């Protein structure tokens, strides 16, 4: 006999779903508004988006640590809270970049903002669950929105970028589902905590381990693609180049945070089970990624592409921290991205400000180095600020990324991976060259452009963003402590 379905609302713990719902509803409201009046200015949508995100942020803050909800598919642990906060925070910082002084195609569509909010909801689902289905759905929701957002930039390169990203993303999705299927086949479950339980009892079976081997490789491919590890990083430079600068900056931080969270959940599980070769695979991949991306960044002619490679390299850096499988290592992932976010926000905004509809300096690139030559003479403040961002990225103290870097390296040293710390150090040294290259152009060369060229898109809101990013980058030393202690607390609370 079928017993009547009886679900108590309380046990659903719907509050865990609230943040995502807020984002989705926000997106819908924007769409409805457009239906009612399609002459509304983008600034309204921007502000609405920020407000929605603000509420979203508050809702996440209100969550209790270590809860499950909605048929236990939602998992609200420390990681999920901090990653949601970072996703939302990052989005709040990047969306005002729509407020340029010049018009850009995509921002005239309210759909842009709706999609943006849906994407955030997707990311939130991704990080707030240990159910592979939900992770997959969240991942795809976010990715599909992201592809569209990229394409909305409405130029040949954007379409090309979107197609490349999309196709590779589809392949990665295939790998992800196949990996999940293997896991399912092995354990009969797709809830990670159950998977872990099952695997823990059978960890000595050779056949099983071979199968795990296969599944973890498939999953690793999928997430290496998202995180952009070598050799799955090939989309990054092209997509960053094709996408608008704000979106590129956004992609260098937010989707990666989400992907990292899932990686922590999946690979952290393997590492906890004592599957050493996962660690080595990740470490080797990470080392290759940071080194090769650095080396390729050396020879770039375009600042945006350089930043793309640099973000690959930074991702490799962080991936190594993941392999450490210590609380410090996991803390460092979030700390690094939090600090990295401010700097990247600033750097990409600077690029955004200098963006023209037409390519003035180079037929191929939007932001060739030459564009910035002699900037210190025409716009000293801008040059100094951009210089600070570059130094921060290079890991020069006391700017924000340095503190992330030192924390990662400290984590590596503490875990006994001194060689890794040394490789990280040397990689930072290589990386310094291409960041310096921009500084060299800005400070040491004579100007070939007028101030207007570089401040084409300048508007008050962008200045505020830049100011904020600068303050956050320079003053990192003052907020690193609370940040660390909060992150550390949340992560250790969720058992990683």
């Amino acid at each position, binding site marked *: 006999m079928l017993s009547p379905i009886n679900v108590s609302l309380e046990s659903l713990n719907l509050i865990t779903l609230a943040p995502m719902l807020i984002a989705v509803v926000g997106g819908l409201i924007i769409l409805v508004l457009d239906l009612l009046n399609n002459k509304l200015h983008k600034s309204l949508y921007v502000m609405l988006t920020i407000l929605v995100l603000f509420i979203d942020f508050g809702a996440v803050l209100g969550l209790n640590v270590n809860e499950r909800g909605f048929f236990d598919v939602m998992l609200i642990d420390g990681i999920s809270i901090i990653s949601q906060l970072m996703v939302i925070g990052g989005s709040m910082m990047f969306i005002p970049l729509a407020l340029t002084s010049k018009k850009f195609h995509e921002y005239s569509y309210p759909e842009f903002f709706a999609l943006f909010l849906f994407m955030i909801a997707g990311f939130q689902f991704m990080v707030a669950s240990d159910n592979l289905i939900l992770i997959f759905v969240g991942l795809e929701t976010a990715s599909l929105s992201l592809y569209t957002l990229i394409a909305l930039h409405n130029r040949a390169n954007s379409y090309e970028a979107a197609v490349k990203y999309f196709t590779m993303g589809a392949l990665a999705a295939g790998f992800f589902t196949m990996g999940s299927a293997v896991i399912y086949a092995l354990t009969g479950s797709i809830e990670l905590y159950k998977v872990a339980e099952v695997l823990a009892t059978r960890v000595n079976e050779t056949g099983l381990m071979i199968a795990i081997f296969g599944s973890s490789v498939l999953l690793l491919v999928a997430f290496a693609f998202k995180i952009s590890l070598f050799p799955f990083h090939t989309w990054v430079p092209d997509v960053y180049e094709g996408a608008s600068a704000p979106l590129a900056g956004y992609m260098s931080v937010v989707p990666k945070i989400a992907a990292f969270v899932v990686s922590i959940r999946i690979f952290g599980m393997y590492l906890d089970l004592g599957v050493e070769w996962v660690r080595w695979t990740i470490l080797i991949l990470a080392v290759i990624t940071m080194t090769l991306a650095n080396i390729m960044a050396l020879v770039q002619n375009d600042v945006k592409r350089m930043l793309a490679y640099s973000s690959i390299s930074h991702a490799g850096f962080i991936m190594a921290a993941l392999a450490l499988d210590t609380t410090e290592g996991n803390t460092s992932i979030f700390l690094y991205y939090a600090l990295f976010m401010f700097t990247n926000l600033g750097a990409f905004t600077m690029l955004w400000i200098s963006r023209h509809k037409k390519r003035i300096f180079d037929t191929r690139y939007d932001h060739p180095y030459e564009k910035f030559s002699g900037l*210190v*003479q025409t716009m*000293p403040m801008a040059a100094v600020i951009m*210089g600070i961002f570059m*130094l921060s990225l*290079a*890991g*020069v*103290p*006391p700017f924000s990324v*340095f*503190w992330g870097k*030192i*924390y990662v*390296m*400290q984590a590596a*040293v*503490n875990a006994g991976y*001194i060689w890794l*710390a*040394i490789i990280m*150090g*040397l990689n*930072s*040294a290589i990386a*310094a*060259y291409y960041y*310096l290259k921009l*500084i*060299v152009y800005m*400070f*040491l*060369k004579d100007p070939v452009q007028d101030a207007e060229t570089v401040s084409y898109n300048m508007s008050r809101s962008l200045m505020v963003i830049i100011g904020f990013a600068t303050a956050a980058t320079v003053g990192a*030393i*003052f907020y*690193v*402590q609370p940040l*660390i*202690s909060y992150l*550390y607390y949340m992560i250790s609370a969720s058992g990683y």
Partner: protein
Amino acid sequence: MENILSILVFFPAVAGLLGFVIDKDSAKAYGVTVAAIEFLLSLWLWFSFDTASAGMQFVEMIPLIPDMGISYYVGADGISLFIIIMTTLMTLIGMASMGETKNIKNMIVTLLFLEMTMIGVFVALDAIIFYLFWELSLVPMLYIIGAWGGPLRVYASIKFFLYTFTGSLIMLVGMLFVAYIYHSLTGVWSFAITDWYALVLPVDYQLWLFAAFFIGFAIKVPMFPFHTWIPYAHGQAPTIGSVILAAVLLKMGTYGFVRFSLPMFPDASVMAITPVAVLSLIMIVYTAMIAYAQKDIKQVIAYSSVSHMGIIMLGLFAMNAEGLSGSVFQMLSHGIVSGALFMLVGMIYERRHTKLMSEFGGLASVMPKFAVIFGVMLMASVGLPLTIGFVGEFLVLLGFYQVSPIITIIAGTSIILGAVYMLRVMKFTFFGPLNNEENKKLKDLNRRETWSLIPLVAIVIWLGVYPKPVLEPIDNSVKALLNFMDEKALTKEAKDMIRVAKSSKEVK
């Protein structure tokens, strides 16, 4: 004014920030005034410094990132005190004598920031703060070399930056490892150097850590074979850049050895005596020879800097108070003398836009004042007694003689080889007939140039004749350092090698 060190560090930075709004034409006056105030502040530091005490003074500590054990922790002892004063002095004089007119405002602002970082390095007692200023000092220097330098300036500045940056990252790993050990032993995170001093490390750890720190410091010093950035940096840098680079930035490396390597790794330091001494010997002899082959006056002085830094390195590893004090004193003397020499070369360069010796000859008759001051500095550079150059060099060689007579004798050839290349410069530049028509019209030093050099001449002679006010506080701190090393050393070899001064035992 217990927080005078913080004032010293941040005053120039704040002044630099405000400097952005100063009008271009008044920028230099502003800069010189700020530097002068800073210099007076540093004199005040000396004045209120208790010269009899060997420990850290004016200590300030503000926790910044307690979870990582990082705090703003500064203090000064006899060793750092005078390096700080030299830094402020050389910045002031370098700035006052500056003939640069292009982008003067940027230059002034950059110099003020540079001053902050330099003083920060010498007062930092927290490894991360030390590292912070250490790295930050590269940036203004990069700009100075790159923006006002010669034709190869970009190459030179990037080389300078990347080379030192690479080295210091290795050092950073070393620091992190020390912090890790400190944590695993005490359960507390700390980057405070004074806390680290208490660590007794096993010898193999000491060796690895010594190596890590060594790379960072050695590149900065610069020790052979890491010295090749310096001829480019000096060759391309504008005068002020060379002055500060030679006078202060290089001292950061040797200062690092005193502050970190020696007290933290006494056993490793003792084991490193021979390798370091060999490298120092190569620096002394080999670069002195290279200096002799140079055609460009500035390059001669650049290579001579490396050679003199070899002497300083040797003294640091003498493991006795004579050598160490001498070495620290030599840091000051080299700072002042090479700074002055670079200024002099800069003055002639401004007049003739060349630094090649072959372009000159017989300048003594058209520029007598210039020649006299150059001569004084030259004599100080080759270590003539009663000039500042002698005291340090003598003490270093005296100190190292106890370690190894043979090495000392080879190192002592520095007094010969130094004379060889410096006198060559003197001869080809100032002596001989005045053949070149262009040189006949040269003007002697003007008032600004003369008055910026005269204080240096005065110091060169004052500290040569009566070094006691400076040497005594240095010596006190050095003795305390050696006492400490001796107590801390694990191996018998190290204990035997580290020679505690008799006079300091009584103090204890």
